[in-house]
């Protein structure tokens, strides 16, 4: 029998009926976050009681929660075979074993391990096998955590006729030690005829670890990790007072032949205490390209060192152009001020036709207006005509349940050509090209309570996120995976081409393999003669989409507002009309009701 939201079967042995009713009344109106906070609060109270020596039942763990994790990195299957053999032997000895291909292993999990055995081969000139590349890089990177609680051993496979025999194994061995882990036994390097050496080592290891890993452990306190630091109070960092974060990774995740340049950006929020939730956005303060500033100065023949005053601040016009002004969008107020200073009949005519002006500015930056309608204006006049720089918001592509003090973004580099001049978006150009890893970027969190996972983890979710619209859904799925949420998840994604533009492809494959995501429907517009978009995939799956909605699914759309969101909405209307036997009007009403119930949410731009 299933139980409704926010309720559980009465634990009669612990609470009496009246206590149970009181608690239920108290928690009924709470949302997910509040409930999470409550659980930590109650656990804290229980701790205090325990500390106060009030007779609380101590729980004796009946079995050890320690396990042995065997990680293998195999190219031809030999390392895998050894790892499997080891698993069988260890399990025979009563050890709980988690056997994982390094390719499927979340590197960040390492710091939660107590016992790890690495089985890895080496290829060519000391190269790691493909499956091991990521983890191999991770343990050598600055991102690698300290591992004081870890005991480890390494089995290397290689071929002594190569110069860098078992190099990958050596690397793991040294790095794990350097990270503070304890070596249980000296590494064994196996040659082509690996069988006997590996077998002896496995037997030795099994004997050594047996006592440690099969001993009964006693625990009185169930630790709820992280909860003590969770604060429901808003962060001290705001748009006006952003946190000086650090760019830890900027990676082009579209293939080398893609027509798009989309970046995966990781920003470290370390020591900020910033908390965000899936669905939130992050605000990015950026600076303008110095080359763009110089283009202004040279077009207008202004000396960059000339001082301008902004409020009570004085600085050079060049610095002001870089740090203070909005240069990479076109906006009418600039045209207005510019015309006041430097009248021009053609520009005036354009300015008076609002539609034309909007179209004109949509494809241009401020500098293009100056280039097309040259005039002589002073630094002060320029400064007065320009709007102050505003930060850009990006939907967050990560969940803190998974990435902790990082925030991830999915950023399309905006790049276009105006009369032979290359133009780039302000923030996307900054994040993609001008900011180096390790450099500072000012950020703040923009809450978005209108784009939230269902409170009930069992509620199904349909996500439509073509292009960079996929970002918040990566966050959603990270969260649902960490929560072990049971609700079904269905992703609709589209982009130009399967081989080049399947954003986070390997992660989605893993989500599917792990059972987090149930369905993925893909629309790659340029892979066939006729263009296929997400709305077409929705229509093709109309019956099932409607069925999910009827089962209570939440429907989310993220991405392009002008075309996609509208096309998706129209598709949804026709699906509801067709499979719900409704008129178009009734279908619209159905969707309005969904929206009111917060079951149809959009994050479009």
């Amino acid at each position, binding site marked *: 029998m299933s139980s409704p939201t926010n309720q559980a079967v009465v634990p009669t042995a612990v609470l009496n009926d009246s206590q149970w009713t009181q608690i239920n009344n108290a928690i009924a109106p709470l949302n997910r976050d509040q409930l999470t906070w409550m659980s930590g609060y109650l656990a804290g109270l229980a701790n205090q009681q325990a500390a106060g020596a009030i007779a609380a039942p101590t729980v004796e763990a009946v079995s050890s929660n320690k396990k042995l994790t065997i990680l293998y990195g195999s190219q031809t299957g030999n390392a895998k075979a050894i790892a499997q053999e080891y698993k069988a032997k260890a399990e025979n000895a009563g050890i709980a074993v988690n056997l994982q291909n390094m390719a499927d292993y979340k590197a960040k999990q390492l710091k939660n391990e107590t016992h790890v055995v690495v089985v890895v081969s080496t290829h060519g000139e000391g190269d790691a096998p493909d499956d091991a*590349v990521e983890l191999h890089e991770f343990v050598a990177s600055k991102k690698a955590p300290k591992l004081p609680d870890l005991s480890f051993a390494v089995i290397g496979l290689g*071929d002594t*006729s*190569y110069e860098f025999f078992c190099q990958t194994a050596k690397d793991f061995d040294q790095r794990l030690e350097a990270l503070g882990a304890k070596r249980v036994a000296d590494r064994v390097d196996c040659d082509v005829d690996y069988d006997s050496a590996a077998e002896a080592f496995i037997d030795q290891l099994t004997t050594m670890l047996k006592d440690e890993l099969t001993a009964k452990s006693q625990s009185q306190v169930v630790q709820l990790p992280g909860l003590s630091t969770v604060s429901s109070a808003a962060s001290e960092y705001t748009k006006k007072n952003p946190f000086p974060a650090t760019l830890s990774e900027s990676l082009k*995740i579209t293939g*080398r032949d893609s027509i798009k340049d989309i970046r*995966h950006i990781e920003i470290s929020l370390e020591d900020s205490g910033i908390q965000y939730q899936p669905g939130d956005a992050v605000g990015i303060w950026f600076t303008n390209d110095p080359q763009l500033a110089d283009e202004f100065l040279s077009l207008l023949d202004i000396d960059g060192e000339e001082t301008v005053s902004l409020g009570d601040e004085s600085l050079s016009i060049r610095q002001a152009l870089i740090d203070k002004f909005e240069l990479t969008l076109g906006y009418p107020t600039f045209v207005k001020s510019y015309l006041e200073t430097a009248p021009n009949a053609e520009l005036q005519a354009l300015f008076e036709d609002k539609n034309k002006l909007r179209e004109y500015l949509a494809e241009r930056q401020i500098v293009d207006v100056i280039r097309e309608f040259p005039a002589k204006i002073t630094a002060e006049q320029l400064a007065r005509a320009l709007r102050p720089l505003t930060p850009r918001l990006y939907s967050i592509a990560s969940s803190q349940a998974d990435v902790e003090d990082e925030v991830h973004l999915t950023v399309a580099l905006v790049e276009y050509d105006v009369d032979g001049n290359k133009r780039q978006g302000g923030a996307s150009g900054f994040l993609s090209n001008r900011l180096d890893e390790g450099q500072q970027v000012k950020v703040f969190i923009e809450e978005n309570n209108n784009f939230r996972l269902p409170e009930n983890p069992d509620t199904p979710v349909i996500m439509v996120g073509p292009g960079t619209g996929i970002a918040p859904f990566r966050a959603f799925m990270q969260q649902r995976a960490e929560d072990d949420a049971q609700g079904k998840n269905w992703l609709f994604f589209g982009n130009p081409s399967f081989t080049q533009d399947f954003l986070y492809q390997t992660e989605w494959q893993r989500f*599917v393999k792990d059972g987090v995501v149930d369905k993925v429907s893909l629309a790659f517009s340029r892979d*066939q003669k006729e263009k296929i978009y997400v709305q077409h995939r929705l229509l093709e799956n109309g019956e099932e989409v409607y069925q999910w909605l009827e089962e209570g699914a939440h429907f989310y759309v993220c991405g392009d507002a002008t075309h996609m969101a509208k096309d998706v909405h129209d598709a949804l209307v026709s699906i509801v009309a067709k499979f719900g036997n409704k008129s178009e009007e009734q279908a619209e009403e159905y969707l309005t009701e969904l929206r009111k119930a917060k079951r149809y949410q959009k994050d479009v731009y």
Partner: protein
Amino acid sequence: MSSQEFPIDKQFVVEGKLSENERIKGDSNLLRGTISEDLTDDLTGGFTSDNFQLIRFHGMYQQDDRDIRAERAKQKLEPLQNVMLRARLPGGIITPDQWLAIDKFAEDHSLYGSIRLTTRQTFQFHGVLKPQIKLMHQTLNKVGIDSIATAGDVNRNVLCTSNPVESVVHQQAYQWAKKISEHLLPKTKAYAEIWLDGEKVETTEEEPILGNNYLPRKFKTTVVIPPHNDIDVHANDLNFVAIAEQGELVGFNVLVGGGLAMTHGDHTTFPRKADDFGYISAEHALDVAAAVVSVQRDWGNRVNRKNAKTKYTLERVGVENFKAEVEKRAGVSFADSRPYEFTSRGDRFGWVEGVDGKYHLTVFIENGRILDYPGKTLKTGCAEIAKIHTGDLRLTANQNLIIAGVEPKNKDAIEKIARDNGLITDGVSNQRMDSMACVSLPTCPLAMAEAERYLPSAVTDIEELLAKHGIAERSIIFRVTGCPNGCGRAMLAEVGLVGKGPGKYNFHLGGDRQGTRIPKMYKENISEQEILEDLDLLIGKWSKDGQENEAFGDFLIRTEVVAPVVNSAKDFYA
């Protein structure tokens, strides 16, 4: 004939836990697996575990662009997975219409846009994405080509000495190659069902010759017409050496158990020459072919794949036992071998006139890669020729192309197209024509070192060495293979390089020009530079001390630079 008819002699069967591939074949429902389900999975461009192996039996390998594998892993993109297709083309003969169809498909639907002629006398498409695979098979099917059993543990594409139109014997030999190919083909309807949307067959199927678990390992067959050994008999499990009387093919000497594959560091594996079982008259060819295959099916090692090929079966059970079983199963006795001799392996470039008054033009295709290069539009040239040609096209086992059966009136026009598109270039050296490489990087998943991409510059280096020592017109059979599996047949070269790691090769010396001696390892795991330095020294000695017309490999044996490999099992690693 099926295995039921012949009780299997247990003493010749290797006991033990069967290899994983045996399970895959056994569970495959006669090569179907769940390939159809994989085709509808658009989350990945690849095939899942068992199917990854099973598509090979349908003539495809899953590959990816290895040059960008690491880059894509970082980008959270899976490898650029695609398939390579190897067509079944017994004897390498293809019609102009077929050619135009494959030319268009390669152009429109493959990542590399090329037609790759291979050492198995057929062509390969490289870089076909999953959504195009069915279209590929259907396109081929429309023009009468399939790719059944060109890979996997089956009898693969049957080779036949090239240019059969030169004589009646060639024509007859080619017909036998085709018949043998068809006789030994899997009988499962899986191919038609999966790729051609054929009807699902409900009846129980059987594989009377191959067995429902198919063969223990790949199996290669040829028909060869001495004195030409272009197909390299000693690289093959089963060879029919054509014996002619008065210009008519009357029978075959049967050579069994050749093979070049080995595994680095595993001395139980080695390249091995075929044994001569003796002579049979032509009408027994199919029965003998089926008998050899079925004995290997029953006695081959299904426990250790590295020792599963026919050559190891012969070493283990003894040639006489194997031969006796073949005689029993085929119901024939081998007579004494008829005399024959191999004198050459290379292709004869340029025009020759056939017995029927038609002309044949053999063109040199470096690496067998037909593609439009700047100033050398090979692919366009071949297509233009196919548009006017009334004869056929023949792919040679040396990866070259013959435009065969040219009407005298078309000769000039074809010559002009060939010249205009760089298919005929004067001044290609003997050395270049005697050099060969397998595909290797970036597409072959087994490759350990460059082969095709390294060959052109390696040949230039050797040309310079020959010129330096005053023998620019001479040549050395030079072959590079990217891994010890040996598609480039380096183990039958005078100088053979076997890929070991990036820029590193095992360096073999001492094969002969006819392909009847296996070269011995001279140095292990050395760089391209070291190889060239050694060759400089050895070519210098050869030019100075070599006897008249003495080939490089023979010279190295005579002067004891390397010892000859006579009995591979004993000598190869000695």
